[in-house]
């Protein structure tokens, strides 16, 4: 297990490096001069040149890249071009917010999705299955930012049950924190739950037709045990794969939900970076999300090995 972990971590390093390289050069394709964006339209050529020198973007691209990479490796992602803050400091405040939202939704989605998916598979073709199937294909189609708007309006503004937007001051207790998280998590988690339910249903149906399920029945085991012991564990493997994709999708989706609920998370930071061509901020944002995805995938690889003895290294 440890060797598997080590090998996955080692494989992740070049991957992250390549991500950084790709994004750095992609973002340079834009001909717009960041200095002009910062200084405004009425800045004269001289001050623009000065600004460019200050930002270091008058140097050759490769030099800029090398510099950025060198400091990134030791954990320094540079300073924000617009407010002069350390990018790492800004990210540090925002990461917990976004991650609590993403993992909150993921855990709830895994619970709800798998439960309904398994139920649908066991009742394949009957009404619980049809209901769940319809509900999940609707759930997949709901735009998270739209359902967020609707929830914020009705539950937050009209009914006043839960905060419609993220509190302006940092929530001071866990209860407040959770309270503020509920609506964003619901908005974010609907489609993930639907996707997981669908996957759980189809992989469960597949597993129920396997020979070893027939063997388990032929042993005289009760259905409950056949399902809980013999079927679910094997059916979980594709669900785990999907959970990996969903984590990535949830991080992406959180950007929009944060926008709706005014959550001070990574998403807003990223959108601002794009709209204002804020290179260091953009790179920091991309690297952090990539790191989260990579870490989640390592965790999933380990859980594969637990679920499926075949992939365990000897």
């Amino acid at each position: 297990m440890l060797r598997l972990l080590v090998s996955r971590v080692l494989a992740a390093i070049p991957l992250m490096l390549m991500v950084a390289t790709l994004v750095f050069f992609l973002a340079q394709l834009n001909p717009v001069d960041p200095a002009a964006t910062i200084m405004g339209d009425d800045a004269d050529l001289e001050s623009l040149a000065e600004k460019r020198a200050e930002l270091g973007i008058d140097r050759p691209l490769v030099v800029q890249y090398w510099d950025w990479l060198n400091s990134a490796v030791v954990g320094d992602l540079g300073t924000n071009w617009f407010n002069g803050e350390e990018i790492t400091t800004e990210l540090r405040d925002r990461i917990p917010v976004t991650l609590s939202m993403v993992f909150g939704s993921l855990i709830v989605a895994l619970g709800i999705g798998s439960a309904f998916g398994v139920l649908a598979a066991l009742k394949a073709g009957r009404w619980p299955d049809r209901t769940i199937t319809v509900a999940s294909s609707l759930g997949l189609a709901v735009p998270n930012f739209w359902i967020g708007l609707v929830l914020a309006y009705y539950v937050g503004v009209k009914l006043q049950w839960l905060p419609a937007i993220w509190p302006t001051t940092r929530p001071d207790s866990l209860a407040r924190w959770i309270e503020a998280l509920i609506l964003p998590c619901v908005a974010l988690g609907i489609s993930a739950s639907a996707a997981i339910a669908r996957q759980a249903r189809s992989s469960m149906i597949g597993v129920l037709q396997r020979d070893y399920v027939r063997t388990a029945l032929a042993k005289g085991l009760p259905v409950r045990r056949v399902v809980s012991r013999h079927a679910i564990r094997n059916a979980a493997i594709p669900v785990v794969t999907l959970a990996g994709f969903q984590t990535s999708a949830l991080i992406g989706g959180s950007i929009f939900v944060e926008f709706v609920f005014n959550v001070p998370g990574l998403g807003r930071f990223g959108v601002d970076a794009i709209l204002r061509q804020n290179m260091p901020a953009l790179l920091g944002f991309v690297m952090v999300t990539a790191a989260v995805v990579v870490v989640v995938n390592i965790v999933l690889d380990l859980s594969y090995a637990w679920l499926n003895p075949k992939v365990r290294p000897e």
Partner: protein
Amino acid sequence: MSEPLLHIDDVTIVFPGGRGALPWQKLPDVRAVQHVSLQIDAGDTLGLVGESGSGKTTLGRAVLRFLRPESGSIRLGDFDVTGFGRQVPTEYRKTVQVVFQDPVGSLNPSMVVGAIIAEPLRIHFGMDSGTARERAGELLEQVGLQRHHLDRYPHEFSGGQRQRIAVARALATEPDLLVLDEPVSALDVSTQSQVINLLERLQRETGAAYLLIAHDLAVVRHTCHRIAVMYHSRIVELGDSDDICERPAHPYTELLLASIPDPDPAVQHVKSQRRRELAQGVAGASGRAPTDSCPFAERCPHVMDVCRESFPEPVPTATGGTVWCHLHTSGPMLGGQPVSELAAGTSTAQVSPPAADG
């Protein structure tokens, strides 16, 4: 005697080992075929018999030039098969054709039968679609199907019928050699013999040579003039089929023969008794093929120390075949006599007792 059609000379085929759990780890290579030499004359049938993992299919794929041997040479007529580069000459593709085991997977499910059979006709003879269709219809009739089957999809046919279609496609190029990779083992007994009879009739009609790869020695005996027995990457015995099947000189051949169940309960009684005497190890071939010992040593009832030290040199058998077994040159010094000579007094033959466990 004229030059054989197919010449396989000292061929070794190695599959590179995959990656291990750690990025820099490399798994050891798998030696699928080691030092195999075979010939097939024009119009002749050679049976290549062995169990799963023996390397027989791999050797067939090398003849088809789907993979390239690590060493040794394969020549067919004027073609130096091992000398081909990435691109295999179309002329060679025309000369060698193949029929696979799996009647479901071997025909493209998205093409109608007519298109499947016409493809080689158009590639090799440049026929226009009308002529190709006409010829495909003839070929279908030749394999016992009807012209109106041209417009059907493969999944509309039974297993035996699909094998007939595969045979028709293979014969379309008028090949000199047909590689038959377990052509009947997925079929029911009653259909098996239909296909075997068909293949034999077609051989009489076309004069193509067959390389028949199979695991069932009884089927092979009925179809082949000569048989090569493979075990775990090596050929262990080679000879005329009746001799191999009645006077086997290698203990593995004898075990194979004893393992074929016979429908006559009296015969089967004798066979199963003999089988029990011969079966020493519990498992089939497993793990990596050894490079410098007899691969059958672990299971052999007559194993000797020398069997674990080197792979034997070929010995001519009394019946004109060849056997690769130390029993013929050391220990009991059988000198090419059938290995069943040892049966009466097994104890004298055993220079060293068989290993306690495999």
